[in-house]
């Protein structure tokens, strides 16, 4: 397969995954914002999506003050924000279009349809429907995309690079989101958790589709330590760091066992697999997560270099 084609397919999958994760982040933030809270804390919650997406100055210049509506507009729909959900879907489709002959028509048509629908969506319409509608829509389109890939694509290199893009992106998103939210949510150690904190941690779990899983795995109340364990270390959680990097390592082993990027993926995976949550928390989980983001990005660079000749 052409390196450029692999690169297009890889980015197509990354952009769709990124769009889904942003929708999850917005949905979770919106959910939290409905809780009674002091105004200051409420606004701080809405700064998180801008911090994760980037482009704070651009946001302030064009949208003014931080408010739920402005942030949702900027992160979900703003065509001038290169990292908005709309921009991600557009870029996913551009990548797909450039390599359409390597995709099944189901995958292409799914993405093309998502693009057409979001292009026709205006902010007033989103307000009118209620914000959760668009979050759900993005998630559904992403599920459909993944399903079309799973259900129709031959298990060849196109499929492989699709999956690689999905998991590299998801690992990056989980780590970043958790790092930002951790700062916002961790209660002052001297103060006991208040009732609303439990709701906030619950909302965070929902951002990773992990609320139900938490209840299945742990009995009792929601504790930050267990949330972190679930999202970083549990191999059976589809969005945890261990699961994502483990998947990347397995894909690379099948693709080329002796490639340098395969060894790197296995190293990152081993490090996460052998971590203990208490020692992560003792040293500083944010540093741990940021370090993961850096290593994951290095892996991304090596994959590009070794397979896509970029």
């Amino acid at each position: 397969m052409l390196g450029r084609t692999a690169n297009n397919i890889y980015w197509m999958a990354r952009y769709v995954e990124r769009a889904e994760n942003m929708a999850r982040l917005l949905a979770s933030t919106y959910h939290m914002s409905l809780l009674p809270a002091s105004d200051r804390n409420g606004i701080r919650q809405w700064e998180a999506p801008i911090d994760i997406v980037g482009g704070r100055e651009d946001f302030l210049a064009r949208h003014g003050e931080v408010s739920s509506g402005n942030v949702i507009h900027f992160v979900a729909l703003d065509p001038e924000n290169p990292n908005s959900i709309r921009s991600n879907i557009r870029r996913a489709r551009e990548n797909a279009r450039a390599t359409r002959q390597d995709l099944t028509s189901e995958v292409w048509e799914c993405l093309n349809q998502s693009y057409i629908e979001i292009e026709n969506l205006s902010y007033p319409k989103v307000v009118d429907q209620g914000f959760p509608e668009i979050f759900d829509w993005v998630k559904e389109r992403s599920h459909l995309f993944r399903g079309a890939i799973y259900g129709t694509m031959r298990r060849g290199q196109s499929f492989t690079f699709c999956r690689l893009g999905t998991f590299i992106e998801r690992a990056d998103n989980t780590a970043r989101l958790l790092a930002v939210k951790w700062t916002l949510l961790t209660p002052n150690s001297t103060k006991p958790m208040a009732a609303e904190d439990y709701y906030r941690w619950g909302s965070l779990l929902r951002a990773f589709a992990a609320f139900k899983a938490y209840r299945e795995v742990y009995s009792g109340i929601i504790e930050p330590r267990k949330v972190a364990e679930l999202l970083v270390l549990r191999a059976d959680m589809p969005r945890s760091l261990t699961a994502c990097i483990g998947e990347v390592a397995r894909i690379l082993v099948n693709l080329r066992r002796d490639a340098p990027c395969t060894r790197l993926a296995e190293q990152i995976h081993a490090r996460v697999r052998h971590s203990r949550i208490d020692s992560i928390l003792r040293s500083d989980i944010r540093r741990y997560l940021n370090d993961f983001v850096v290593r994951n990005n290095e892996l991304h660079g090596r994959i590009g270099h070794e397979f896509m000749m970029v």
Partner: protein
Amino acid sequence: MTRDGFFDEMNGDGGDIRRAYQTYCEWLRSVPPERLAEKHQQADILFRRLGITFAVHGDDDGVERLIPFDVIPRILDPDEWRTVATGVSQRVRAINAFLDDIYHEQEILKAGRIPATLVLNNPAFRPEALGLDVPRRVYVHVAGIDVVRVGPDEFYVLEDNCRVPSGVSYMLENRETMMRLFPELFSRHRVAPVNHYPEVLLRTLRAVAPPGVSDPTIVVLTPGHFNSAYFEHAFLAREMGVELVEGQDLFVDDNTVFMRTTEGPQRVHVIYRRIDDDFIDPLAFNANSTLGVSGLLSVARNGRVALANAVGTGIADDKAVYVYVPEMISYYLGEKPILNNVPTYALRNPDDCAYVLDHLEELVVKEVAGAGGYGMLVGPFSTADQRSAFRAKILANPEGFIAQPTLKLSTCPTLVAGEMVSRHVDLRPYVLTGETTTAVPGGLTRVALREGSLVVNSSQGGGTKDTWILEG
């Protein structure tokens, strides 16, 4: 003859239905007219879903649109096709011999059969290709020869497209669509298949691989997805099962062309390129081109990669060189031309120029460098203003123009706004040359949808039809 002395391919001279159309007409009589209109709509939906669109040149909105497709087939019987097929193959054989000659010994020029200046000073002549040996001495592997018909046995060649002729995907998709919409017609007729075209193309490309390569790696080289024919490039690559590459996917190292793959560099032996000479190698031609591959021509020169079509074929389809194709046929093949050339006035010739300026309202005037039906005056359908504008253009640059009598293009029944009407058509059969030269039975029929119009180009309101060659 029917209307205004135009030959109609179904009704002939207005008496009996012509042989090729008899079975079709029986069927047509049994079908309610609304049904055809319905099928027409279905065809539109099919084409849109498949994404068979083209970008119109010079259109500001840059939208992709469908080329209108007509559901009434154009039907030729075996004898009619034999004339066309042997005729276009003959031309392509002569053109390949001509190209081999002018890039080597130039004997036809020395013999004075074609004016040397016309070839050597022509911008389409590529000195870079001089002395370059190509596998099997084939230059034009894929040709699209534009043929028009003016009577039962009278065919004329308008143009020999020898650079990167397009449109073959329409021939294939039109057939696919007709078979889906009218399966019953295909059980009533024995229509020669066209679906094997990609297979024949692949065989052609394999046949011209550099010597000693038994299992060549073949690629289709496209300018990219902004090109109006990108759909066709992707289609042919997929049908042949080869990679569709852009210039950036290829590189030259150690006198070899490689493509960048996920497995590392992989050697490429044959490039079916859909990029013009000017852009194919920035080292040899246009230095600003980002579409091509640096050093490609030097690898071809060393016989380490084959380009299809070869570099420099544009000289053979130059409108001024066209006049001499019958001469090539007699010089190289010792045969008589099977198909007519259209009598052509070269306006660089003062006598011709004077005659043409006196007869503008009867003639078709074309820009030598024009394509796609742009820069063309159709005398009988022109206004006085258009003629005087053209007169000024001609006087400013007579070398830039040729003129031909207005041909009485044949008509075919066509569905326009639900009504069966007569519209003018042409035909572009595709001729492939590898080990041998063959014309794939059929081709692309283009139809001028505007009443009375003789311009069939899609950019000028033309549509397409499926072309049926009946098997004897």
